[in-house]
């Protein structure tokens, strides 16, 4: 057996889902008995069979990856409940095993996978999808790149309809059907508050919390997930504010963005110039704008 062949054989077994009682399946990836499969490449010792030795790695794999998803998606877990969340994670990891060297990226395909596999969230799929998008945005905003921000004075100075601005790479703009931001904030607060409570008390409060989550009513919201002083924040946006930022993020000039959101009658009846100015002042103060780099600057940096 070559090195590659041994590694394929072991990885298939290690990545095979555990049974509901968290043991290694008695059925091997090749359809035969797992005991025979394990004995084919792993030595037994005086205390453990080949099956039991392989089972240690099988359990470690699933426990590590499930813990990582639970840490990254506590909101989704609260929405679905523990058992359903576990089933969803197992199905996701079986369909989409990690293809990145870092666990940080484990949930990056969860949104697209859940869209294609709605049965794992059942009737809660719309809110579950919203939550996955928000929790993934939270991860990306936490450690996304930041460029040198334009100071408010620089933004104001370079005014005019043809001005092109760039949003910081860590800013994420999202539209949701449910106010999932309040849920995540509630969960974060709950985790902070109950850090020192006993498990029993914690569980009781968690059950109450999950019941509250289930009562969440649909309501369209627009959100910027961003970072300030190394902490991630959720900022609710007005629909027009969201539209302007989205257009800017897509590379529109300031004039094009305003036209797109308010129509050709920009700066007329529907657009409140004072409000737009105020938004720009806020966004600049938050450091959301950075300088557009020319093609030659980009090339020289890449070199």
């Amino acid at each position, binding site marked *: 057996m070559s090195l590659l062949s041994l590694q*394929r054989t072991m990885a298939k077994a290690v990545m095979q889902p555990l049974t509901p009682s968290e043991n290694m399946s008695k059925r091997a990836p090749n359809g035969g008995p797992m005991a025979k499969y394990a004995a084919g*490449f792993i*030595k037994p010792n005086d205390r*453990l069979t080949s099956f039991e030795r392989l089972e240690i*790695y099988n359990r470690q794999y699933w426990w590590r990856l499930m813990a*990582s998803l639970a840490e990254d998606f506590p909101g989704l877990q609260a929405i679905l409940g523990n058992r359903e969340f576990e089933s969803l994670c197992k199905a996701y990891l079986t369909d989409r095993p990690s293809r990145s060297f*870092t666990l940080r990226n484990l949930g990056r395909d969860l949104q697209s996978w859940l869209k294609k596999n709605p049965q794992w969230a059942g009737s809660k799929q719309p809110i579950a999808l919203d939550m996955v998008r928000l929790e993934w945005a939270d991860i990306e905003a936490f450690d*996304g790149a930041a460029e040198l921000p334009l100071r408010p004075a620089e933004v104001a100075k370079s005014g005019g309809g043809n001005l092109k601005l760039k949003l910081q790479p860590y800013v994420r703009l999202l539209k949701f059907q449910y106010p999932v931001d309040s849920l995540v904030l509630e969960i974060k607060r709950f985790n902070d508050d109950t850090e020192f409570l006993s498990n029993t008390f914690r569980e009781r409060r968690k059950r109450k919390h999950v019941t509250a989550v289930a009562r969440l009513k649909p309501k369209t919201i627009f959100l910027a997930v961003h970072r300030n002083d190394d902490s991630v924040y959720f900022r609710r946006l007005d629909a027009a504010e969201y539209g302007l930022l989205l257009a800017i993020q897509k590379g529109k000039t300031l004039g094009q963005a305003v036209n797109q959101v308010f129509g050709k009658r920009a700066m007329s009846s529907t657009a409140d110039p004072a409000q737009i100015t105020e938004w720009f002042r806020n966004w600049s103060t938050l450091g959301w704008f950075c300088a557009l780099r020319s093609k030659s600057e980009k090339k020289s940096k890449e070199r």
Partner: protein
Amino acid sequence: MPANRFNGFTDYDIGLGLRSPHYNHILSRKPVCDWFEIISENFMIDGGRPLHVLDQILDQYRVVQHGVSMYFGSADRIDRDHLRRLKELVKRTKTPWLSDHLCWGSVDGRYTHDLLPMPYTFEAAKKTAQKICDVRDYLEVPIAVENVSSYAEFHLSEMTEWEFLNEVVERADCGILLDVNNIYVSSQNHSFNPFDYVNSVPAERVAQIHIAGHSKYEKYILDTHDHPVIDPVWKLYDRAIQRAGHTATLLEWDDSIPTFREVHNEALKANRFLAKSVLARAV
């Protein structure tokens, strides 16, 4: 033999793993600590708090990089994106040496995120050594490979674990990060004498030593890094220091992490053995 070409001719003393529950204490109190070991993957990102904290730590402390996912022993090709990000971090930290594990963990581009044991074969030794050389040439920094704890052995193996380690490091001409806790854990799981292992390692290649705690179950021991170091592991450490001399030593504590002071005090127990080795060499 404190400084050698495998640890960049440095003379580091006792260090600690940099872990997020200690960030605030370290940044606000600035405790005396000779050096910190970082998990490279935690900082191979584009921005945000982790890199901000790292830069502040780098301003005041010496930092060494330790990886968990290079998988020198995987038959897969090296992930170029991983290497590129790692090199960016090496430039940032100026790590005098870089360590990762003598194990595998990915196949056909799928990652287990575990440190899986190697089959101790000549084919595996040759391929692993080649990968270590390729990584070292790209990163331009000395490499030390760490022995892992294991819970399984393969029929395929043609030699002992320490013979395999020696075969790899001689072929790659690289250093060793000797984890004496891992030696102890594996010795209990596979019924060998851990001193045979420590006595067989080429002492001149030891760049760094790891110490840690573990968890004992009925039929095996798991390397959990969530307990103090036990006496049998300190004895192995003592023997390793007798052979390798005063060596950069790091305590790993990754789960149920106590206060910074408790972890540091546990690490400083290594001084008993380091001082003894200095005295022995002076006589």
